[in-house]
């Protein structure tokens, strides 16, 4: 008799354990959905690349102070652009996304999460941007001025991993565009990157922000980064300064609405707000180059125009650049990076 009761007990324990496990899982999902549906408060979720937090910290409170933004809460997540994009593709629920590079949005368009016409507006879905800049230790002890200086013996360059970071792609495109004359001589550009990546890059931070932290900890002589990130760390009082090379690259950071959002109107209102002169000024104050012409004119001194500024359009657009340079299997820059680092 005891033996039978024990068997029954063992089975019962197993079943209870399974049921508990099962319930735990399903109730979690249901709970998440319920709270988001709650009328008590509208909460928009923003998934963004690593560095625009400084900008959103100013823009979001300003939006909440407008009539349309009243009562709207925000949850924010920042990380390496490619990684963030893959998380959203894999099911991370969100309302609005802001990535460093357009292909990270294209990935979501392909997955059906962002509408095809996300970049149909006046500014093609780009509310702010920057340029690629060279950050050095204060006083510029190595006298770095332009891209050729990075290839001098013993100069160590910090730039993130292009497989996870959008910043890394911009950073590599800047000298590539310079050396290849805007893509006319790809081999010259690749030769430069081969030397830069093969001989001058030692660490592989995952995002632009992590690269900054690595540099500030004392690794490397030069940090390649967004101009806005350079402004940010200079304002923090770090012992660094930045040099905009005469020839550099225009960074365009897209924002898009995720079409599964439960709050389409509120999300659209927020995205529209980003383009208003008020928000544009806040972006500019945070170090990002505004896209609104009038506001840009106001900040001309803070954001000097480089002698030559290549754009992604000059290289044939992101579709082509990504296929030819950054495709994991066949991209020529991807191959160089893989060979140097695997």
């Amino acid at each position, binding site marked *: 008799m005891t033996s039978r009761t*024990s068997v029954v*007990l063992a089975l019962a324990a*197993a079943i209870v354990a*399974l049921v508990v496990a099962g319930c735990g899982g399903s109730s979690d999902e249901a709970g998440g959905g319920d709270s988001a549906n709650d009328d008590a408060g509208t909460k928009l979720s923003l998934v963004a690349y690593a560095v625009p937090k400084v900008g959103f910290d100013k823009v979001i409170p300003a939006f909440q102070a407008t009539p349309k933004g009243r009562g709207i809460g925000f949850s924010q997540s920042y990380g390496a652009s490619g990684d963030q994009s893959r998380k959203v593709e894999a099911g991370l629920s969100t309302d609005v996304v802001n990535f460093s590079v357009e292909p990270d949005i294209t990935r979501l368009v392909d997955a059906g999460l962002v509408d095809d016409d996300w970049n149909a507006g006046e500014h093609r879905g780009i509310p702010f941007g920057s340029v690629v800049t060279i950050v050095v230790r204060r006083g510029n002890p190595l006298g770095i001025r332009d891209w050729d200086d990075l290839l001098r013996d013993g100069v160590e360059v910090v730039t993130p991993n292009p497989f996870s970071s959008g910043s890394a792609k911009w950073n590599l495109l800047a000298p590539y565009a310079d050396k290849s004359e805007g893509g006319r001589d790809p081999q010259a550009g690749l030769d430069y990157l081969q030397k830069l990546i093969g001989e001058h890059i030692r*660490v592989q931070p995952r995002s632009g922000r992590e690269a900054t932290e690595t540099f500030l*900890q*004392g*690794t490397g002589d030069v940090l390649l980064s967004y101009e806005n990130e350079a402004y940010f760390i200079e304002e923090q009082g770090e012992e660094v300064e930045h040099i905009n090379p005469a020839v550099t690259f225009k960074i365009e950071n897209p924002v898009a609405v995720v079409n599964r959002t439960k709050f389409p109107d509120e999300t659209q209102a927020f995205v529209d707000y980003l383009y208003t002169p008020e928000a544009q000024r806040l972006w500019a104050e945070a170090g990002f180059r505004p896209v609104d012409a009038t506001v840009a004119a106001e900040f001309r001194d803070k954001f000097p125009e480089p002698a030559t500024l290549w754009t992604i359009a000059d290289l044939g657009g992101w579709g082509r650049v990504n296929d030819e340079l950054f495709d994991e299997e066949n991209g020529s820059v991807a191959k160089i990076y893989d060979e140097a680092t*695997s």
Partner: protein
Amino acid sequence: MSTVVQARPEGGARRRGRRSRSYGGGVGPLGIGVATLWLSIIVLLPLAAVLAKSLEGGPAGLWDAINAPSARAALILTVAISAVVALINVVVGTLIAWVLVRDEFPGKGFVNALIDLPFALPTIVASIVLLSLYGPNSPIDLDLYATKPAVAIALLFVTLPFVVRSVQPVLMEVDREAEQAAASLGAGNLTIFRRIVLPALVPALLGGAGLAFARAIGEFGSVVLIGGGIPRETEVASQYIAKQIEIDRPESAAAVSVALLVIAFLVLFVLRLAAARTQRHERG
């Protein structure tokens, strides 16, 4: 489930009295059932999932992923530093346990509690603390940032309790009379330690060292800031794995994880065998 049902008659309630059951006896089929289920869900299932993921590219893909130069470098570095860390722990941990058991001094209770702090502290906090102490802005002018010693220090910090806590109770139980007898027969301190105390400690030392090693090869948080994560120099396996996940190469991450698991399992298994053998020798 069938194993549970079959295991019951032999393993379960075969012994006679209540006393023997509460000692060496089994906990009964309910206990075995829960234990089996628990181990399956919490341990075996995730391990199987990792193994399956790592084999998505076939055994050759698994091998290539482990054998990639930076993966191999990370694994070798991790195992080497962890072994050194385990050895240092054996020596220093025994010393600390000895002091805590045999010596009386004011604040002993406080020190005793301090030993467990590395367990309680989130490891990333350890990393921040170490970075501010041994980083570029070091107040004692000792910049170890992104060097192998920095990785070792971080690992020593988080693995400190293992050897101390496994040796301490054994040391308390050691037969002091045998030591006194040896001393009265003219044995020196070193001889007493080597011939009387050490043999009793060996199983605990091996166990503690094994746990410290296993913990060290999987450690992430405490190394992540102070170690710098420089590929082929200070990047440990867990950092390499995290990087592979972030650059969307989960198969490669899973492959290196499997390598770590196999290493940890082998080391723990061998140490356990060795401990069992010394124990048998001692009794025999």
